[in-house]
């Protein structure tokens, strides 16, 4: 989570220096939740569909920094080859789908990945996880996808990162229940509520939810509570967030809390943490430098087709199928 924070701070600077075109969306304040989830998953086995604020989860799941910097900086060598940007990157072949912007849409996709594995007789303790925001809990896609996963009893872990706002829209204009975890029962699935500013709390709840899904308990809904500690994107100063909320418990910086927890519990020393910081800063710097020196995509080299099939197809001489195509 620390690495993600350092990376994102760098992205923010690059954006402000005009080196990144398009938006920059940070997960500041949500790293404890996201990283805990990423850590609880096993790349190569599990599926993880990260959303807007999941830099920490991506890194924990195994996404190399260079995938991030290449995508943000528009290198042709990035996973999206300049065709899509920023947080829309993914590596579906490695179990990490590339989000579309339409919120909620990844929920049924992860369900489908798990469904496919079960059909292939290859579910094998796999889980699939995705995160969405408080705002996205109001989408039809969230509802249909989660309900379908519940009906199919798929090992889906869905984290709602309730960071109190959807862009500028506060919770009270988004839903009318007290805690979104109250939705779990209506779907017939497991439900957890956790303080997302508290790494230790996350570390006890989220892996437990993952375990239950893994062991056949069906979908698990985890609602994590925190505040978004930056604007919606780096173009937004988030000034609509009331000072009282910023100052309150949810406004705590989960990274500071986590460092204190590490030190207080004797898990890591201050020196160690500072050393990590230096090391991560160097890694980030390298990934940025490399991406920056890489060529952008070249429109003249593009094939400009959205289809995998190359038409026209060869003529088929036989009536037998499935010889053609």
């Amino acid at each position, binding site marked *: 989570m620390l690495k993600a924070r350092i990376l994102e701070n760098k992205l923010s600077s690059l954006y402000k220096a005009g080196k990144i075109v398009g938006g920059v969306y940070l997960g500041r304040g949500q790293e404890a939740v996201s990283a805990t989830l990423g850590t609880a998953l096993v790349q190569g086995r599990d599926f993880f569909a990260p959303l807007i604020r999941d830099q920490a989860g991506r890194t924990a799941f195994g996404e190399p920094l260079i995938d991030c910097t290449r995508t943000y900086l528009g290198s042709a060598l990035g*996973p*999206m*080859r300049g*065709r*899509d940007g920023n947080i*829309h990157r*993914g*590596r*579906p*072949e490695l179990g990490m*789908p*590339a989000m*579309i*912007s*339409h919120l909620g*849409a*990844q*929920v*049924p*996709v*992860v*369900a*489908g*990945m*798990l*469904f*496919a*594995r079960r*059909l*292939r007789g290859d579910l094998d303790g796999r889980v699939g996880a995705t995160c969405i925001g408080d705002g996205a809990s109001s989408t*039809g*896609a969230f509802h*249909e*996808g989660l*309900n*379908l996963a519940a*009906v199919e009893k798929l090992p889906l872990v869905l984290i709602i990162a309730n960071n109190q706002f959807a862009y500028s829209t506060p919770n009270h204009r988004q839903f009318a229940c007290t805690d979104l975890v109250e939705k779990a029962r209506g779907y017939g699935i497991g439900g957890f509520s956790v303080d997302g500013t508290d790494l230790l709390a996350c570390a006890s709840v989220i892996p437990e939810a993952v375990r239950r899904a893994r062991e056949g308990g069906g979908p698990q809904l985890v609602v994590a509570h925190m505040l978004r500690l930056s604007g919606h994107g780096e173009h937004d100063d988030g000034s609509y967030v009331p000072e009282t909320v910023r100052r309150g418990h949810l406004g705590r910086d989960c990274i500071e809390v986590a460092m204190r927890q590490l030190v207080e519990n004797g898990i890591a020393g201050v020196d160690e943490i500072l050393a990590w910081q230096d090391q991560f800063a160097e890694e980030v710097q390298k990934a940025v430098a490399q991406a920056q020196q890489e060529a952008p995509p070249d429109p003249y080299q593009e094939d400009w*087709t*959205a*289809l*995998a*099939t190359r*038409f*026209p*197809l*060869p*003529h*088929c001489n*036989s*009536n037998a*199928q*499935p010889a*053609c*195509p």
Partner: protein
Amino acid sequence: MSVTYIDAIREAQATLLRDDPRVFLYGQDIATFGGAFKATKGLADEFPGRVFDSPLSEDAMLGLAVGAAIEGMRPIIEMQFADFSSIAFNQIVNQAATHFYRTGMPIPLTVRLPSGGTAGSGPFHSQSMEGIYAQYPGLVVLTPASVSDAYHMLIDGVALEDPVIFCEHKFLYRWLKAKSINGDHLPIGQARIVRTGKHATVVAYSAMVHEAVRAAERLHEDGWEIEVVDLRSIKPLDIDTVLASVARTGRLLAVGEAFPWGGVTAEVVSRVTEEGFHLLDAPPQRLNSRDTPVPYHPKLWAAHRPTPESICEALRKLLSF
């Protein structure tokens, strides 16, 4: 013994389930019940664990299909009616259609859309959405007009690496019969000349091919020889075959059952005029449905869509130039 259009669709799915372990079927009421139109009748029994009743969630059905395709499967999704794909619209046009371009990973899924009007079906069980989906990059849009095409194009479509919108015409389901499902097996993307002629070309697809042929038969009695081209696939569109036909006849009428603004007929006419202007001896014409929702009452419906009569009328006008 004869095979209907819907038999062919059922058989194609049976063949696919038998031959390709990656194929599964997901849709509302398609398992035990065999689907609203019985296109999957008996398949759940014949292929246990491969045919699933879905919840009433078109958006999630398509999302599931995308996820399953990512993990190597070839889902076939049945929409109960094409009209309900409006709920799955986002997953189709923004998730499935963009995936290969964005990530390099193809999404081989097939969405079956029971399309087109029948008497008494009304505004929400009659729509022809091929021209909507064809506007989006990344989709293949198929519109079989014959029993044999319904069979082969479904099998060939599922074999493609891309998301396929398979528009089946509900009117043809039981009305259209053939001796067998064999027939000229053209590749996807190629149009077929279903009737040769020399005075004018009618370009049509799906159920309208049959209305066009009827119109051609009537005009034949008056000495006109009308060529009828069945597009078969809306996207890609085989403009070469159309141009070759127009080169022979010099006259073009494009007929479609969808709403009149834009859509297939506009694409056909503008492609032909752009690439084959010099071939045209007369202004190319279009005939579509009227610009209202599809009306419920059979009398209104019959006046809403192109018919052999209105096609004849349009052809007479075209031939008079």
